């Protein structure tokens, strides 16, 4: 792995989505399974457009039942309160002791807009611009308390040091926030921001604010292309490209056999790399690129794309969570671990540490200051 740029290890994440399930135990069980496999994080999607529980609430429930795995719920930004969203994400980070992420998403339909009745649906460009503003103001609010602002100084009777709290005075196109936050700076400084960067407007937000970008790509060349462009765009925003992890997001259906990928699903890595060892590649579907085959072939695919520098890792979305996650952990992950490609234990404790991302400095702290 030393040959790879970014100095990165392979990163793996999995989705826990189980439509219609309201039973906390089944989410806990899946998250524990993923943690047993040493995965970087689990995601739980959320949308006002379909039935289901509040994803952040579910992962708060999962937090005390797990110890190391990152917890990344989706919170949308179009109809929610930015102040409330950042407070909830910061709280998940406190509960999970530095394991929170936030998958940023938007609401684009008129149906969702009617649930709130504040405004009509807006085009993707506008709602993603606002999502960028929410991502920005969230980080400002996380920084609005310097680390250690809660001083509990018995001598002076002061609980807080107000010199270490800051207003953010943010004015966006559709909202404004004064600050400071009601939640002290979370353990990771900034919980990990995740954006699905497949589409253009979202990609700009990802390049500018995300720590992890997800790319739905069926072919390695396509994944590599998006990754290159994301890194370039991140650079143009003044970021170091290595501060951005790019993961390929695939639907996985591991229901068919132990080894053989379904015939006709093969997709050799043309151009950029070697052939897969008899395995299948993902195929484009309406829901996104879908891998269908056995866990061993999936391990081959992961290893091959990763070795070719196409991606920093994978975000895998099981078609049937209870079945596929088990096969993923006990089959695919076990094999990757056996080959020394994936961690067998968590050397770090925060999600940033799993991802090899630094804890960000506080934008309000005075250089050489008291904190």
């Amino acid at each position, binding site marked *: 792995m030393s040959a790879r740029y970014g100095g990165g290890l392979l990163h793996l994440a999995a989705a826990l989505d189980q439509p219609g399930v*309201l039973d*906390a135990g089944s989410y*806990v069980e899946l998250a524990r399974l993923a943690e047993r496999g040493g995965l970087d994080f689990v995601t739980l999607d959320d949308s*006002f457009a*379909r*039935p*289901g*529980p*509040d994803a*952040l*609430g*579910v992962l*708060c*429930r*999962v*937090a*005390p*039942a797990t110890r190391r795995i990152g917890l990344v719920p989706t919170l949308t930004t179009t*109809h*929610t*309160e*930015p*102040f*409330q969203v950042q*407070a*909830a994400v*910061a*709280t*998940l980070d*406190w*509960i999970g*002791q530095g394991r929170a992420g936030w998958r940023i998403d938007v609401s684009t339909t008129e*149906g*969702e807009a*009617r*649930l*709130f*009745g*504040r405004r009509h649906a807006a085009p993707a460009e506008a709602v993603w611009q606002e999502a960028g503003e929410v991502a920005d103001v969230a980080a400002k609010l996380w920084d609005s308390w310097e680390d250690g602002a*809660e001083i*509990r100084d*018995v001598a*002076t*009777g*002061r*609980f*807080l*040091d*107000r010199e270490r*709290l800051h207003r953010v005075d943010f004015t966006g196109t*559709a*909202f*404004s*926030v*004064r*600050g*400071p936050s*009601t*939640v*002290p700076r979370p353990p990771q400084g900034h919980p990990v921001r995740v954006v699905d960067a497949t589409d253009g407007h979202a990609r700009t937000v990802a390049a500018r604010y995300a720590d992890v970008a997800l790319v739905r790509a069926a072919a390695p060349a396509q994944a590599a292309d998006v990754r290159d462009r994301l890194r370039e765009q991140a650079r143009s925003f003044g970021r170091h490209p290595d501060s951005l992890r790019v993961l390929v997001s695939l639907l996985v259906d591991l229901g068919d056999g132990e080894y053989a990928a379904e015939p006709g699903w093969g997709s050799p890595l043309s151009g950029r790399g070697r052939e897969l060892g008899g395995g299948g590649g993902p195929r484009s579907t309406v829901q996104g690129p879908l891998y269908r085959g056995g866990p061993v072939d999936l391990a081959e695919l992961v290893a091959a794309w990763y070795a070719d520098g196409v991606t920093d890792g994978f975000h895998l979305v099981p078609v049937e969570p209870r079945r596929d996650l088990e096969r993923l952990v006990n089959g695919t992950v076990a094999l990757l671990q056996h080959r020394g490609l994936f961690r067998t234990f968590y050397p770090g404790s925060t999600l940033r540490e799993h991802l090899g991302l630094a804890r960000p400095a506080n934008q309000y702290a005075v250089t050489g200051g008291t904190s």
Partner: protein
Amino acid sequence: MTVRRHLHLAAVFPGAGHLDAGAGTTVWAGERAGSRLAFAPFERLARTAERGLFDFLLLDEEPRLPEHRGRLHELDPAGGPEPVAVLNALAGVTARLGLAATVNAVFGEPYELARRLATLDHLSEGRAGWRVAASADARAGADHRCGGHPDPYGRAAELVSVTRRLWDSWSPDGVPRPFAYRGRHFDIAGEFGLPRSPQGQPVVIQAGESERARELAAASADVLLARHAPLEASRSRYADIRRRLAAHGRTPQDLLVMPGVTVVLGDTAAEAQERAAGIRRQRITPRYALYALERIWGTDLSGCDPDGPLPETAPGTRDGRALALAERWRALAREKGLSIRETVIEASGRQSFVGTPDSVAADLHRYVGEGAADGFVLVPQTPADGLEEFVDRVVPLLQERGAFRTEYRGGTLRSHLGLSRPVPQR
């Protein structure tokens, strides 16, 4: 007047809340005061409350950090995690305890709020409660999309009723049904994301002493969180609330009146009084004494000596309550020859029940037996161990008197509170 035999108990996580409405109650100095940032202190308090068979734990929240004279207030605990998120985590480490959060109803939108609370109610299998806050603090508007509201209480009341419609919108057999609502503050339509919860709806808790708060509670709330008052005053308040309930076609069983109280125990009455005074002294530091005075006087008193006499100048306010309070404090200081700090320690932050476990249990029971309250919300004075002592020493005595449950009978918060499952409104 029918009287409840059993009393109900709840605890609030100490710190940010202003339940006692006077000087703060939390002792945060010293090693025993746990941080409100880690999960462990919340877990400990919840487990203790559940061990004591409490009805519920309440996590309080302010929509903004408190300010004093235009600057952030530094002397009281402030800032902390978002309560609903914490309760979801606590649902995993408790089995029966009710889990209530203060959520502001002035700035949120009904759909999001209804969904967040319904999620907690489902994941906890029917243990969620919502203390509806209608803080009219205009500064909080600066952090929210809608800005300030000209009619915060009206909006909050409407939001609660819309939220209940959303909770009720699915058919009894779990099929989503469309809702549509148009009122003064909201115009929404669509389908809600969750079925009715195991207890039908989260328990709605209303706080306050004002005419408006009482009326709102009598009209629709399940629990009224009241301020502690002497027995006679509490009885007349209780009677007033019952009259209001009847006027709304509700029975006394439909609303529980639970004052927020502080308890200090000792092996003897004298020792308890001594401990109570010690806690107030620890709380009211010299700076805190000046702060308490400035809140009444409304002027900058930072030049005063906390160990010196009360200021000669009259309060710079025309608020009648503040002027009366200032006069009382001055008279007290004159009479007993007290300094500023001694006056504040003597006059404010008085604990509600101070005594031996036996006498406290008897007092609590008397309030309920004589129709002054249905139960109490305990405000522990130290986060670390404030509740342990009560659970270990007072709860068994209440049980001996037959005044408190010896086991949880049902699984939901409504069943703990003896509330019926609400009939769907549609």
